[in-house]
């Protein structure tokens, strides 16, 4: 009697786990990008809100040949980082932190955006989702296998004909070992695949911009920044351009990291003799010392070799200008009201002050705060 109940509960457990896995997979596929964007506090912007960022994304959309312009988002954080999301090139989004906009020049920003567009073009988001789902399935099956053995093991062995018992025991042990190892192997596979796609996105960035140094110096600046990104979990970490959970440079080199070590990425980009995929593959093999490259053969036939094109004029903006531009935009998006005082100060007033009278902190002039437009 107890055995039957135990078996029934075991099967029920398997059923529940399966249904949960199915729901998670479907929800991730259809709504994953929106969930992720709102979790990270991203605000959507239009062409007028931040012309430089929007133009850079549009330029990369043209260079990469994406069918549709992705949605552009800004995240209010001083930690520099960026990510792309979306299950197909037609439904893609790119998000960038205000910290990133502050420290990078136009060419460096273009390198980072090109890397994200590379993820979109190579369908990495969908690819990693599928790999994750498959790995989840493997882990689940391994779990069921162990449970099933525990549930039915005693019974079936006792009812087996004599003589087959020993072989059965060996198969049982091998099976258990595999089932214990499966989740670990699945994790290793997942992270290895994630790292490979990061290299490929770097290669795509170099090809689109024809200027690998842009991304290289951007990565250098980002990795030097001590600021940490909030609201990141292990689940969302793989989507960013640099591992936001990194503890130290060395920690990035292990098997459980979603991103390759930044120093290696920079060395490969700087070691490229051209901007094409073949050039990237050559530099990759030289820097890592591995015999097998990372770019698939089909990608090397077209887009194989391309010359590096240095950008024509240096970007004239300063960090202060870029910071002002990004933070002004965020204040406006949060419905702050802007008032130009006669003393030359631009006052940024939070929404609760609408309708009240305030004093300029510099000169003391009184201003009446109108309601924010739009």
């Amino acid at each position, binding site marked *: 009697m107890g055995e039957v109940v135990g078996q029934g509960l075991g099967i029920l457990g398997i059923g529940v786990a399966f249904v949960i896995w199915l729901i998670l997979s479907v929800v991730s596929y259809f709504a994953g990008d929106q969930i992720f964007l709102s979790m990270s506090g991203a605000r959507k912007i239009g062409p007028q809100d931040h*012309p*430089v960022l929007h*133009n*850079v994304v*549009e*330029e*990369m959309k*043209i*260079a*990469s*040949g994406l069918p549709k312009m992705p949605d552009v988002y800004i995240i209010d954080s001083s930690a520099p980082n960026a990510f792309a999301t979306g299950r197909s090139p037609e439904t893609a989004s790119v998000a960038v932190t205000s910290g990133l906009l502050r420290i990078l020049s136009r060419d460096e920003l273009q390198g980072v955006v090109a890397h994200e567009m590379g993820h979109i073009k190579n369908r990495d988001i969908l690819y990693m989702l599928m790999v994750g789902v498959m790995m989840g399935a493997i882990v689940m099956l391994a779990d069921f296998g162990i449970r099933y053995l525990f549930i039915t093991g005693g019974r079936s062995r006792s009812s087996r004909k004599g003589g087959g018992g020993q072989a059965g025991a060996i198969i049982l042990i091998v099976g258990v070992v595999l089932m214990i190892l499966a989740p670990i192997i699945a994790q290793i596979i997942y992270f290895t695949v994630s790292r490979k796609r990061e290299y490929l996105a770097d290669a795509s960035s170099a090809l*689109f911009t*024809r200027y690998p140094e842009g991304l290289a110096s951007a990565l250098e600046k980002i990795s030097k920044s001590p600021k940490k990104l909030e609201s990141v979990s292990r689940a969302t970490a793989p989507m960013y351009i640099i591992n936001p959970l990194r503890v130290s440079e060395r920690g990035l080199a292990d098997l459980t990291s979603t991103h390759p070590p930044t120093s290696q990425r920079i060395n490969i980009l700087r070691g490229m003799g051209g901007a094409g995929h073949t050039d990237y593959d050559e530099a990759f093999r030289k820097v890592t010392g591995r015999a097998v490259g990372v770019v698939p053969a089909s990608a090397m*036939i*077209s*887009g194989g070799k391309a010359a590096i094109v240095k950008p024509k*004029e240096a970007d004239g903006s300063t960090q202060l200008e870029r910071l002002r531009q990004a933070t002004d935009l965020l204040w406006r998006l949060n419905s702050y009201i802007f008032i130009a005082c006669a003393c030359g100060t631009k006052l940024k007033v939070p929404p609760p002050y609408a309708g009240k009278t305030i004093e300029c902190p510099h000169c003391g002039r009184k201003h009446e705060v109108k309601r924010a437009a739009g």
Partner: protein
Amino acid sequence: MIVIVAFILAVVVGFATIYNALVQLRNRVKNAWSQIDVQLKRRYDLIPNLVETVKGYKIHERETLEAVTKARQIAIAASGGAADQARAENMLTQTLRSLFAVVENYPDLKANQNFLALQEELTSTENKIGFARQYYNDEVLRLNNKIEMFPSNMIAGMFNFKRSEFFEVGEAAERQAPKVEF
């Protein structure tokens, strides 16, 4: 018997796949070409606004400003094929560069928000023209490769797919540094 049917089926499917790939590439090349056009027209639309903004500041170098307007009219009217068009576009680029160099001497104009926004738009549009050409050339390479390589060359020959030309005219002139004359 089943083996023969399966073989024929495989060949047909292979045919269709290659044919579709060729069609897709040819359409992408056409689309890429029209993208270049879109960006060129965008530049024409931005320039009158720029000229008006600069005029408001009464700069001394009137000829530089007029050169921009003239070059724009010539570029819009250019209809003599890709080479002529490219030459006209390069002229327009040179005049714009001269104008931006001149503006360096007028700090008020340089700080004008409208002017800065227009400068960003024009710089970006020139970048977009460059990237549109780059993408066009990339797609042309892909199409030509597919037309020439085995086994797709057989199907390309059967359905008369033609190689496309690279957008190379005018790049040599672009690499020369612009001469600013007053």
